[in-house]
């Protein structure tokens, strides 16, 4: 199961709508081993394409170096499909290289750049095997599994949306 805050879900959807009809892509980093997506990092789609995405190689290295420095990992790797359903394509499956990540797909085919609901689905992709998982959206990251008594980290750029 993927658990994420409404603010993070909103940020991913906004990115996908903004970049439509090209595919949008990015990562939500979180503490290593915590399975808690916290920090949305929008990436440039170096392919600039409606049917393909690839992180820019320089940005990719900068992202990983920052995550290593912060003891983070890519909890979510997201991208959009702009004319097809939010299900991993053969290309997505063949190139998936983070077995521990939740692969989130958003489909903007219904409403494009406009307001309106999107398909938002999550999968694990391990050794070519796709498993869809439930997506649970919480109001704040406090509800996202932070042990009682510990301060919740709220480090996305959208902090007040649920207030």
């Amino acid at each position, binding site marked *: 199961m993927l658990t994420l805050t409404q603010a993070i879900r909103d940020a991913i959807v906004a990115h996908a709508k903004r970049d439509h009809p090209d595919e949008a892509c990015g990562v939500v980093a979180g503490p290593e081993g915590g399975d808690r997506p916290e920090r949305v990092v929008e990436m440039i789609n170096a392919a600039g394409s409606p049917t393909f995405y*690839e992180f820019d190689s320089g940005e990719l*290295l900068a992202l990983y170096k920052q995550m290593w420095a912060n003891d983070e990992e890519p909890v979510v790797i997201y991208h959009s499909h702009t004319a097809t359903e939010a299900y991993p394509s053969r290309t997505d499956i063949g*190139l998936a290289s983070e077995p521990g990540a939740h692969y989130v797909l958003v489909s903007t085919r219904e409403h494009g750049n406009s307001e309106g609901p999107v398909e938002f689905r999550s999968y694990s992709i391990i050794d070519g095997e796709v498993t869809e998982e439930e997506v649970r959206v919480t109001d704040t990251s406090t509800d996202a599994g932070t042990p009682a008594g510990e301060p919740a980290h709220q480090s996305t750029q959208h902090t007040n949306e649920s207030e």
Partner: protein
Amino acid sequence: MAIEVRIPTILRTYTNGEKSVEASGSTLSDLIEDLEAKHPGLKDRLIENGDLRRFVNLYVNDEDVRFTGGLGTGLSDGDQVVVLPAVAGGSRD
């Protein structure tokens, strides 16, 4: 000549789970041969038909080797090599 090589999660099955390993070589090509000797199977995940795999990124001191001479990129003691699989995909089948 010791060069630190950062190994991505998906390739750590070849390095007993180690996040980084040491190897040596005066070029990237030599380094990969040395890696293969120490961690059999790794080379095939980096090289295809004698060239770097399309969806594997290799960096020497933060430079993508595609812009520094590919497998012929020269190495010196203390250099840092990072291996990162491309993050890519898309609806195109």
